[in-house]
């Protein structure tokens, strides 16, 4: 039932915020803030309360579950379930939700009620995506989060908002329909095999599909998630949408919507179509590498700060995709950490650019020069989050990308080498950002207000979180542990075997997630092998 509350709180909050806005704008903002804080507290409470056993491997047992028949004729259930992965992503969702409401406090003054209605409903849609384990419900939530996001961009965006919003909507809608066809194909294939009509995730895992059909159905899902992620060459909506969206919209887009793509890969593509995903992994990894390099190079070429940050997302999410399709323990953990860390650091970068734009009414780097002299605190925050974003050790993104590199090195030295070039490139765009915007002399004679108390609170909280993720990521990794074990069981051995022929695999002494022997990879897989003879055979065969 608590899962339903997680969805109902933002939905109801959005309705109330929309209704009270007619009387007073301030109360509308307070209602929206209260709803997001309530959701945040609820999800953190779930995490703390379940922390002791969140990391335990529970086969098909969720932390919390809610299941009711919905459209019985089709075997559709209103089935929500939560494991460590979705729990953490929901915590992130509400956290960035709070930040989005706060950052819009001064920025939005037209149509305040409708704005907060849309903001909270998009959060509800995202929570729905993270919780749905009935494929119909998942698709429902997947499509539903589009509409409010579309309005956020199309109404409160910048100059080319309509173009960007329509492009965003068309890309995601078309890819979403392909996923719907894939879901239905799986549904009928499952019926043909078992005689049961169901959209239930747990039931559909292991549906026998012929190799050709399996690949096509997998691609249907993959394309939908790859567009959201975004993967090169499906990324072209992203720079437009991120740049034109209002600050809160960019934060939600970069911090959360992109994560739904990665989440979909982890939750659905790998477990449902392990065979097809295996065969497709080299292609996906290659596209991920292209995305990492392309995003970094394009980011370096931008003069619009928001566009620059938008392209860095393409690069960072390339690491996530790489990690997911490398598919070993290090890479998966790295991919997940990158998801969380990128949500915080890039979300924060968008907020800082938004604050700059609010003060200077420009996002052009060339017009900003030397801001450090007038707004040292904001510039310092900018430096901090740029450094986080380019992977400075000790900050969140570093751990994630390092683990992905480590994992890909085990599969293929070449992949790891190319991805490392991407990390190198990120230094260029990061330093360019800092030098052009903050350093130098204040030639344009900017005299601006530094961080306000409200803004400083957001920045301070985010700094702490990014440091925490960088210095002590273990709690996050622990919560992700069951998902890793689950993936190891259904997906089997590292899926990049095909690419690793030329590369020497080296023994990795470092235990990736925890130092205690009980959870090292060998023991972990042994436990998995014990539970599933099929996995044993597959695992042994590939070795």
């Amino acid at each position, binding site marked *: 039932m608590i899962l339903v509350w997680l969805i109902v709180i933002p939905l109801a909050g959005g309705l109330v915020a929309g209704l009270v806005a007619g009387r007073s704008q301030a109360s509308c903002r307070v209602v929206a803030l209260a709803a997001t804080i309530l959701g945040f507290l609820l999800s953190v409470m779930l995490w703390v309360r379940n922390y002791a056993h969140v990391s335990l491997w529970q086969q098909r047992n969720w932390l919390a579950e809610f299941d009711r028949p919905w459209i019985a*004729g089709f075997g559709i259930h209103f089935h929500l379930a939560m494991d460590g992965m979705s729990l953490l992503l929901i915590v992130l969702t509400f956290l960035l939700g709070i930040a989005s409401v706060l950052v819009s406090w001064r920025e939005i003054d037209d149509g305040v009620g409708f704005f907060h209605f849309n903001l909270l409903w998009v959060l509800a849609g995202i929570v729905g995506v993270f919780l749905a384990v009935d494929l119909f419900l998942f698709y*429902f939530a997947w499509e539903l989060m*589009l509409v409010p996001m579309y*309005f956020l961009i*199309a109404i409160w965006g910048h100059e080319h908002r309509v173009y960007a919003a329509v492009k965003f*909507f*068309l890309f995601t809608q078309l890819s979403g*329909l392909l996923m719907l066809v894939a879901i239905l*194909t799986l*549904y009928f294939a499952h019926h043909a095999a078992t005689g049961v009509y169901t959209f239930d995730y747990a039931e559909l895992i292991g549906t026998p599909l012929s190799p050709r059909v399996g690949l096509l159905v997998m691609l249907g899902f993959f394309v939908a998630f790859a567009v959201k992620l975004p993967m090169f060459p499906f990324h072209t909506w992203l720079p437009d949408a991120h740049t034109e969206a209002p600050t809160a919209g960019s934060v939600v887009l970069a911090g959360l919507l992109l994560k739904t793509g990665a989440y979909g890969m982890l939750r659905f593509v790998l477990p449902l179509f392990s065979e097809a995903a295996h065969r497709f992994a080299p292609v996906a990894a290659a596209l991920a590498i292209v995305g990492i390099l392309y995003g970094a190079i394009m980011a370096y070429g931008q003069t619009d700060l928001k566009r620059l940050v938008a392209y860095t997302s393409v690069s960072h999410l390339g690491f996530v995709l790489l990690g997911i399709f490398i598919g070993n323990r290090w890479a998966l953990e790295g991919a997940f950490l990158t998801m969380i860390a990128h949500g915080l650091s890039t979300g924060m970068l968008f907020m800082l650019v938004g604050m700059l734009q609010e003060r200077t009414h420009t996002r052009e780097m060339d017009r900003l020069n030397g801001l450090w002299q007038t707004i040292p605190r904001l510039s310092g925050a900018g430096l901090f989050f740029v450094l986080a974003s380019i992977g400075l050790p000790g900050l969140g993104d570093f751990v994630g990308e390092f683990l992905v590199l480590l994992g890909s090195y085990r599969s293929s030295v070449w992949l790891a080498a190319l991805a490392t070039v991407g990390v190198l490139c990120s230094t260029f765009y990061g330093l360019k950002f800092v030098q052009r915007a903050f350093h130098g002399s204040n030639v344009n004679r900017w005299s601006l207000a530094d961080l306000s108390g409200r803004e400083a609170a957001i920045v301070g909280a985010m700094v702490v979180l990014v440091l925490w993720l960088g210095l002590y990521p273990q709690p996050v990794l622990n919560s992700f542990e069951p998902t890793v074990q689950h993936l190891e069981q259904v997906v089997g051995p590292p899926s990049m075997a095909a690419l690793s022929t030329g590369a020497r695999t080296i023994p990795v002494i470092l235990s990736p997630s925890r130092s205690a022997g009980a959870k090292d990879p060998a023991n972990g897989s042994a436990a998995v092998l014990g539970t599933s003879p099929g996995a044993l055979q597959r695992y042994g065969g590939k070795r």
Partner: protein
Amino acid sequence: MSSADFVALLPLIVLGAASVAAMLAIAARRSHSLTAGVSLAGLAVAFWSLWPAVGVVPRQVTPLLVIDRFAIFYMGLIVAATAAVVLMAYGYFERQHVVREEFYVLLLVAALGCAVLVAANHFVSFFLGLEILSVTLYALSAYLPDREVALEAGLKYLVLAAGSAAFLLFGMALVYAQTGTMEFPALARALALGGAGHLWVLAGVAFMITGFGFKLAVVPFHLWTPDVYQGAPAPVTAFIASVSKGAMFAILLRFFYQSGSRDLHSAGLVFTIIAVCSMLAGNLLALLQDNVKRILAYSSIAHLGYLLVAFEAGGPVGAAAGTFYLTAYMVTTLGAFGVVTMLSSSERDAEEIADYRGLFWRRPALAAVFTAMLFSLAGIPLTAGFLGKFYTIAAGASQSLWLLIFVLVVSSAIGLYYYLRIVVALFATEPVPAAAQKPYPALGFAGGATLVALALILIWLGVYPHPILDAIQSAMASLL
């Protein structure tokens, strides 16, 4: 005829009596509200009379009409949709400087024609229903004679509908010449006995498909649609788009399911081609339009293409998916044209996209209803259109109609673009110059309440379709 026969026929009798009553009311006292009230009361009684009729179905009443659950379900749709049209038309005609009362008589007769169509399982009743419907629609399309486009619409509809009726009649004649029967079940037996491959039967069915095609406005028989949609008064367009198309789809289902013509291989091929062309042409041509009524006209062509995907899937799933899609589509079209009706003035209908710029900031409720309708047409969740599209794709996937599904997916993504164009205009934030800012006509209570009800039904169907799905599935059982 037994008394049970009369009970079964009750909805038709009530509809006929209501139109006579409305006519007599006009003769007694010419009053807009009185006539509209009598018509509404007649429709309410007709709707109520469906329950006694359900008690005696299925029943063949005379060789011409079969009253079964399928017919009852569609009659319910027709009566309810006609009532919605009456409610929305009331405010619209209050603003027009014409003789208003006869509109309701014509509308009731048209509804009667539709009700006959959905119960027909004989060529004669099929043709009778069709002509009752068509003749009244000629008059309804041209109901505002001082508008040039209205006369053009009426005339165009007259010529093309008469032509298509001729095709249909000739097709029926050819089939009859070969099989010697005009009843659908007897036809199925005759075809099963080997008449199916005969040239005359094939030619007859081909001519009939042409007739159906004109009435459903599918490519390549769609040319009249945009002009008639644009020219006819907005409430009439709402009726043509929802009720008249719905009744035609019902008779299409009944004819092809019950006469065995669906099993003709070439008919399936023809419908596949028609469906593909309709989906693509409808959506692509709508991209070029700036007139909301014409956009909705082209979009209706595309939607009939989607409906044919469900029809092609066949079997109980296809019929149920098609009927659900049609129900959703009727609610949506009524709502969309309802908004157009509400905003239309006495000089012209609100049909340019420019008329809708920034509507949300001035009339949030009306714009919200319109947005919901447009999202339903685009197939976005929470709306009935989403479940309809889902069901249709499911029906297609269950029969592995991959070509049709692929075209459906691509063309609905194209379609999204022009729906979004209207939505963008509704929410446009740039200030409208004061000169262009005309005051909107006042919302009548009846029309406003109807729109709200339609929006609620739309969401109800999209979120909790269980009851209506059960009703549809039991109704479709009588078709097979």
